[in-house]
């Protein structure tokens, strides 16, 4: 086996992130929980969960129209979808515990199967297996964002919903869903990392998670310490990146005066 310099770099970087993840996992299990800044969007979600239990209206959950395994050349990214799946799993768990019904939709067959497993599991763990209804986890389209958006608006039209959680992989099709929900006065909690959908989300609803906040959402929805470790690792890596950017900036300023070579790639 021949390892290219890129492969060695990937392995080293992975090793660093793996070490940080283990370290922070151990720290949180030992009780060193991170201080969290407030995310008002998730307060709206908690309120909807509580109201759903009282009104009996379903909470719609969607990880978006992206694909699991979608990489370069496809719109959705696997990481966004995993963030959406983790959030969906957590919301389903909370719903199962407090008795609020859920309605889950997706636009990818693999994500659909993962969601079915996650929702069924959430009801099993909550001891409410009899309340699990497989028909409430729906595949509305396959790798077609516009078809998916029209499917979600049909769900909005067909039954009264308590709120809609749209966190994951979204693009311009979000406007079709978000605007329809806003016209129905449906509370929506939304989030993505894409620069196309984010301004549309901000216009449509005040409950918007921006960028990396979608990866932190699960940690805010669960009291489990292991989920909080994610925040510590993200913060540590963000600090490293900020230091590197500032260091590169200062080096770039000082290099010509000190006769130092330019940074590679600049």
């Amino acid at each position: 086996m021949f390892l290219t310099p890129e492969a060695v770099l990937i392995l080293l970087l992975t090793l660093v992130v793996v070490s940080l993840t283990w370290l922070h996992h151990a720290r949180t299990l030992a009780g060193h929980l991170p201080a969290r800044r407030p995310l008002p969007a998730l307060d709206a979600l908690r309120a909807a969960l509580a109201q759903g239990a009282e009104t009996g209206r379903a909470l719609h959950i969607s990880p978006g129209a992206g694909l699991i395994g979608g990489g370069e050349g496809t719109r959705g990214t696997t990481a966004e979808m995993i963030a959406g799946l983790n959030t969906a799993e957590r919301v389903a768990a909370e719903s199962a515990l407090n008795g609020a019904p859920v309605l889950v939709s997706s636009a990818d067959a693999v994500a659909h199967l993962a969601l079915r497993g996650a929702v069924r599991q959430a009801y099993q763990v909550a001891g409410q297996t009899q309340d699990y209804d497989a028909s409430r986890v729906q595949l509305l389209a396959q790798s077609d964002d516009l078809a998916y958006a029209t499917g979600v608006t049909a769900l909005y039209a067909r039954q009264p919903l308590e709120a809609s959680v749209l966190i994951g992989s979204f693009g311009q099709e979000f406007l079709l869903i978000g605007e329809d929900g806003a016209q129905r006065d449906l509370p929506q909690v939304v989030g993505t990392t894409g620069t196309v959908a984010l301004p549309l989300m901000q216009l449509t609803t005040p409950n918007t998670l921006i960028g990396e906040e979608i990866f932190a959402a699960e940690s805010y929805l669960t009291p489990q310490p292991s989920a909080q470790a994610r925040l510590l690792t993200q913060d540590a890596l963000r600090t490293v990146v900020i230091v590197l950017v500032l260091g590169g900036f200062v080096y770039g300023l000082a290099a010509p005066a000190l006769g130092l070579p330019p940074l590679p790639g600049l």
Partner: protein
Amino acid sequence: MSILRDPKRLIAAIIAGVAGLFVLVDFGGVTGPSALVAELLIEWAAVITAVALLIGILSVAGSHVQRVRLRRADWPFSLVLLLGLISVIGVGIFFPLPTSTGFELPSSLAEVPIRSFFRTVYEPLAASLLALLAFFSLSAVLRALGRGSAEAIVIVTVAVVVLIVQLPIVTAIPGVGSTLQWMNDYIAVAGARGLLIGSAIGALVAGVRVLLGFDMPYIDR
């Protein structure tokens, strides 16, 4: 329960972690047996996706057959969906295509009859939906302004300014074009890169946590 004390989760995490590591290292252009293993894993993933799609089709069809059978609200739409599903699959498999020697059946669902079906039926529908986005944008802007959200006001102001300064008559004013270009190259790109770096870190941590078995969205416990 710790993953080390749960054999089912541990085995799943080891399989997912090792498979993920092979594919990850393959991105670095590695050669040899590792590249072959990564290629094999990606082929398996494609097969699993195809099976998942089949299950998804059965799920969709089952759900809509049930709706039609029980005459639930809007059941005629379900009937249209089922007819569309059957006709597309039927045409894609059994539509005879003329050849120099006679007729032959389509070799895949990407052949002419399906392509024609999509071009004549689906693409106009998709284009109509995209056209609606302009009106939906306007409606969203008006609602956001009515709400008085600071973020929305900034978004709308920037959008209006960018639209105005791109008019030929405005771009002709000295300094406007270069200022716009500078804002685009430095302020907009800096913001987009900041968002991208934050998201990439979140994605990296999410990926590593899946490989290590801390998050297992794939497991059926």
